[in-house]
């Protein structure tokens, strides 16, 4: 959101203006200011502990919880006032414009949620024993309205500030996030319900499980990043054995992900194919270096040794529990559609989908990078080659998807290998 277009400025301006009107207009009669203060603090705590979701500074916080509690306890205007706390979130990152917009967004969501709560027959105030279960219906309506308004406003701004070919718009605003938001919103009713017994201590007790959950999510994310980095480092270590394939697994992984996203694979499967791409050639380690780097054609024995590598790779990664589909991809990435591949000679649809995707990406990267026996080919030539062999070696649908993705997003071919750089050996290290 560095440079906003005129329409985006109008949009943000309109949201902020509407929020200011809501807050200024009141009415303030009958508001319990100490309650608003406590809930405001709760909201600041939630906002300050937001998790960053992607590079575009989209963060997710549990604000909904505090504003929905305020909807029940203080009514629409009170909820709008509580939501102003968004402005004071102790978190680095958002620019002043982003902060203003976020605040306006939460103020408007809270206010409209409060209106919905009243419209569905909810009573504002501290709920007592007689309020349940009658409170649940109006509260649910308020929660849905809150999440929906939030969603629409945010989508609006993302749509107006999107950059061409920006995949994070799709990835960042996924639907599950809004379900999670609705779930956290449900904590609002708990805070409201306990207010009569525990008073201002309620948010503290409610926050503990929430913060533990967020801690676990953060740990999960950190572990996952660590995991990816470790797999990739180990793959690179394997590649040092064959100088010419440096970066190969990384690129095949990228290509496979491009194809998978292009054909609309589910995100979990895209994740799995990314690992499959990284790991597809680990079995090459079992092939003698002299064979891998041989110039000229291989003897039958040497060729047999090369053909063994998918099975070797499979042996190695078989114990990694989550990789079920990836395993099939690794094992069969050298099969051909016409049944002339190895190790099993499968044909057509018998070949697992992952393997067919990997086959295309693997061949493309092999063609566009240097090998000991020939130089790299230019991208258009490699694409022509893929097209030529589609239906024989490659699955035509995946070739089309790959070509479409490359034409849209481009492809970074590896740097040409400097001639004659020796392998690091124990003597030269």
């Amino acid at each position, binding site marked *: 959101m560095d440079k906003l277009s005129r329409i985006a400025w109008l949009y943000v301006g309109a949201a902020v203006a509407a929020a200011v009107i809501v807050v200024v207009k009141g009415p303030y009669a009958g508001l319990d200011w100490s309650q608003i203060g406590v809930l405001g603090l709760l909201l600041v705590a939630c906002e300050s502990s937001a998790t960053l979701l992607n590079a575009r500074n989209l963060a997710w916080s549990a604000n909904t919880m505090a504003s929905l509690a305020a909807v029940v306890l203080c009514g629409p205007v009170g909820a709008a006032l509580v939501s102003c706390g968004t402005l004071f979130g102790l978190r680095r990152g958002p620019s002043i414009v982003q902060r203003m917009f976020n605040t306006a967004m939460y103020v408007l969501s809270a206010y409209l949620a409060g209106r919905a709560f009243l419209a569905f027959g909810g009573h504002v105030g501290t709920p007592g*024993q007689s309020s349940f279960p009658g409170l649940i219906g109006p509260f649910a309506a308020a929660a849905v309205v809150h999440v929906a308004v939030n969603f629409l406003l945010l989508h609006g701004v993302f749509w107006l500030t999107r950059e061409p070919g920006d995949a994070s718009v799709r990835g960042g605003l996924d639907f599950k996030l809004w379900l999670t938001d609705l779930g956290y919103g449900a904590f609002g009713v708990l805070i409201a319900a306990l207010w009569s*017994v525990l008073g201002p201590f309620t948010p503290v007790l409610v926050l503990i499980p929430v913060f*533990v959950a967020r801690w*676990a999510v953060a740990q999960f994310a950190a*572990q996952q990043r660590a995991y990816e980095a*470790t797999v990739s*480092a180990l793959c690179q270590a394997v590649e040092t054995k064959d100088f010419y394939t440096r970066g190969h697994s990384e690129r095949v992984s990228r290509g496979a992900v491009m194809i998978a996203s292009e054909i609309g694979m589910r995100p979990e499967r895209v994740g799995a194919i990314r690992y499959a791409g990284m790991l597809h050639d680990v079995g090459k380690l*079992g092939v003698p270096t002299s064979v891998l780097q041989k110039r000229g054609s291989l003897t039958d024995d040497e060729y047999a040794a090369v053909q063994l590598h998918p099975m070797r790779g499979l042996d190695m990664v078989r114990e990694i529990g989550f990789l079920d589909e990836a395993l099939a991809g690794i094992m069969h990435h050298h099969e051909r559609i016409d049944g002339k591949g190895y190790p099993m000679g499968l044909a057509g649809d018998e070949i697992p989908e992952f393997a067919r995707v990997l086959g295309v990406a693997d061949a493309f990267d092999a063609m566009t990078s240097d090998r000991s026996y020939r130089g790299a080919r230019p991208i258009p030539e490699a694409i022509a080659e893929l097209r030529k062999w589609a239906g024989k070696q490659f699955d035509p649908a995946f070739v089309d998807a790959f070509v479409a993705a490359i034409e849209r997003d481009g492809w970074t071919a590896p740097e040409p290998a400097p001639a004659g750089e020796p392998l690091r050996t*124990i003597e030269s290290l």
Partner: protein
Amino acid sequence: MAGRWYEPRGLPRHALDSGHWLLVAFAGLLLIWSVAATAVTGVHNVDAALAFGALIAFGELLRLNLPGDREAAPIATAGAMAYALVLRIGSEPARTWPSQVVAVTALAMLIGALPHLAVGRPAKLTAMSARLVAVACAAAAFRPLANAGLIGSRWWTQLPVMLGVIAVAWFLESVVTALIRTDALRARFSVALGDELRVQFPIAAATGASALLIAFAAEVMGLAAVLVFAAPLLVTQVALRRYAGIRATYLQTVRALARVTEIGGYVETGHSARVSRLAVAIGRELGMPEAALLELEYAALMHDIGQLSLRDPVPGGATVLVARDEQRRIAEYGAEVIQQARVLDSVADIVRRQSDPCRPDGRFQPPPLSSRIIRAANAYDDLVGSSTDSSRAAEAVARLRLDTAAEYDPQVVDALGNLVSPAA
């Protein structure tokens, strides 16, 4: 069988030691006593008993495996603690006796464990027993006070007492679990207790807070509170499960990928796995805490990664037979590889220092304990390999002993000797 003594990588499921039996028997007695006592006094507030029982059973069904072969059932524990702490349900004061709390908890836990048994996942009796003992302790401490109306009627008098009870119960459960683990893993008690408290703290905090929420909310919302206030914990539980899942996958993956050196013919099959098992066992024997043990395990699994930089494998993979400088280069390269992962810097450091001699020679600081352990474990495995011949194991230890003080850390070699030939 040299390998058997450092085999257990967690609690062995079917080999319960005396400590386990004692705990399980105690829990069984608790169950029998509580059911009998409740039968005599009659069940107080049947609806509440059923509602809390259902929550506990549900929570037990959703039990959670945590890093380090631990088990937790946050929802069940929160439900049981709340049942022990509840003061009023709606307008009616709760006058439940401790025996009834224990009986409901124990029976509900058994019911919740049944579906697991039905699909062939064995019940972890010790973990269940530890949880039951904690709940029984809380109920026994709190119920008599509450039933006698001794803890006031406002939240600022009630809350501190409840917090205290929860903290004590949690500590007790940790002590019991640590005792069991000390027994099973040959760990030190103080270390095991520290690990236990550290790992369980976030879960205990979430569970305790939820128990208090349920107990207080029951006053406003009646038994609906039991249902509604389990929801926050469900969110926590989902997050924790994903975290535990990726932790397990990570270790699995490193274990699998550490075998690249075996596939490439650089080391003997099974070498990395054996060295890491032995290293972790030595580390535990020497009282290393769990976080350090995990790093040690990663480092031990990947200690030979550096050999990938060799064009031709060292004969038989035995790095112990290669010259010191070359060993150091291999280690250095392995550390570089691991450092590329950016998150395993301390692991990289352990791998880098693994070939340094234990005695500082002026230029170098002595290597970290983990490096010294890997050095000894690696040397031992290079000498013994997959052989299970006990005389060969003894010879190898004797040979390492000759080099202690200069090459190997005497403490580490002693621990190794204890592990591979416990009779000596």
